[in-house]
């Protein structure tokens, strides 16, 4: 029996037989189909995935002509902060443009939440103006809605994470509704200023990290921004594969937000006026790469089919079938990219 070198969702290497690989692909796609109530992948798509997973090449690539564009989240946090390269943000952006040849880039602050940016907005707009003089590629400005920051002890509002375990449900819901009002104001304010300073796009990153209220606040902010600036480009990047119901009774466009999966999330984002949708599917660290990949591609395919706007799939550590490890292996990353584009029909990554 032939053995294929592959990995688990935490990146640790393993070898599996062809039968095991095929079984994991099938179980993975069925898991997505069952959870999302969407079609599973067809046999020929599973065969294509099998081929991608089992190629002997260390890295693989999309076929010529299938290339897609990339956008970044936490753009300027990567080189100067996470990689510890002592360079300023505009050098980081130019390195991306001129050396890495990224299609786009994002200016971001270490304190990556809209709430925190209010106080330093003038420094941030100045940085954007400066960066725009020197760059050719489109530059986003990005941050997280991060609704949790509006609660005690970081903010003025009662903390629903504390209220919920005490079964103070109506209080927890009221707190979330109150936090939304503050968050919307901050997102609209910061995004407006950055757009006026020349940002080519605004990235709402990790939408939903605090649950459904976080999503509703972001949708409303997009709606307001789009009315104010019809030409503004907004990327709406999610935080998880389904919207966590911390509130449970929040609606947008008549749809309950809690529990929506990517193919449903993209429709509300579109309705609010988002330009690009950032789909997220979580990686399960315990399962194999094949299982995670089949599952992710199934969700992504349903999402791109439902979408009228471009979908950029989030392929960072621990999402988009990428192993949840600090140094995701290139064999897995390149395979995930190829599969997401060729079978998932992603418009970008």
């Amino acid at each position, binding site marked *: 029996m032939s053995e294929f070198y592959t990995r688990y969702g935490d990146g640790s290497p393993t070898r599996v037989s062809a039968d095991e690989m095929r079984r994991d692909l099938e179980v993975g796609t069925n898991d997505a189909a069952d959870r999302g109530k969407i079609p599973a992948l067809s046999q020929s798509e599973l065969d294509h995935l099998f081929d991608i997973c089992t190629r002997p090449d260390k890295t693989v690539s999309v076929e*010529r*002509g299938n*290339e*897609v*564009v*990339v*956008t970044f989240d936490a753009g300027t946090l990567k080189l100067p902060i996470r990689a510890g390269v002592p360079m300023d943000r505009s050098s980081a952006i130019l390195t*991306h*443009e*001129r050396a*890495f*040849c*990224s*299609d*786009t880039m994002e200016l971001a602050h270490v304190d990556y939440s809209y709430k925190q940016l209010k106080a330093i907005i003038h420094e941030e707009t100045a940085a954007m*103006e400066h960066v*725009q*003089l*020197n*760059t*050719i*590629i*489109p530059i986003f400005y990005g941050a997280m809605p991060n609704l949790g920051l509006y609660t005690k002890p970081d903010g003025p509002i009662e903390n629903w994470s504390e209220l919920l375990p005490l079964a103070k449900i109506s209080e927890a819901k009221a707190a979330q509704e109150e936090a939304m009002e503050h968050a919307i104001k901050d997102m609209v304010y910061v995004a407006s200023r950055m*757009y*006026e*300073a*020349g*940002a*080519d*796009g605004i990235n709402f990153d990790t939408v939903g990290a605090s649950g459904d209220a976080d999503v509703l606040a972001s949708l409303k902010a997009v709606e307001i921004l789009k009315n104010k600036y019809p*030409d503004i*480009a907004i990327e709406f990047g999610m935080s998880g594969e389904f919207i966590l119901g911390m509130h449970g009774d929040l609606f947008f466009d008549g749809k309950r937000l809690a529990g929506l999966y990517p193919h449903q999330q993209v429709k509300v984002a579109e309705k609010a006026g988002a*330009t*690009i949708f950032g789909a997220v599917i979580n990686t399960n660290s315990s399962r194999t790469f094949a299982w995670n990949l089949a599952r992710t591609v199934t969700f992504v395919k349903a999402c791109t089919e439902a*979408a*009228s*706007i*471009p979908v950029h799939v989030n392929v960072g550590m621990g999402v988009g079938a990428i192993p949840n490890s600090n140094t995701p292996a290139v064999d897995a990353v390149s395979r995930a990219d190829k599969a997401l584009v060729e079978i998932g029909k*992603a*418009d*970008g990554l």
Partner: protein
Amino acid sequence: MGGIRTAGDLVARMQMAKGMKIKEAKEYVAGKLGISTFELCDEAVMQEIRESLDIGHVQARDGASIGIQAKFNIAKLLGIDIRSVENFKRLTGLK
């Protein structure tokens, strides 16, 4: 796609400016450049085009447009408004 080495930034701009999906965005850009979508990612083809249209390239050569200058040309080429270009015009009294 390869950013300014190829036509990655241009295709990204069309997704951002008009919400075009990848296929449509590539077709739009290829149409403006007079090449096939297949050639958009070809470094050799694109180097020549980028240099002749003066829309910026990876090589920092003297006399070639960089930064905001290249974006002036990109905005005209693609028929879109670029915010920083509009700001430049406003601040310099060009508009």
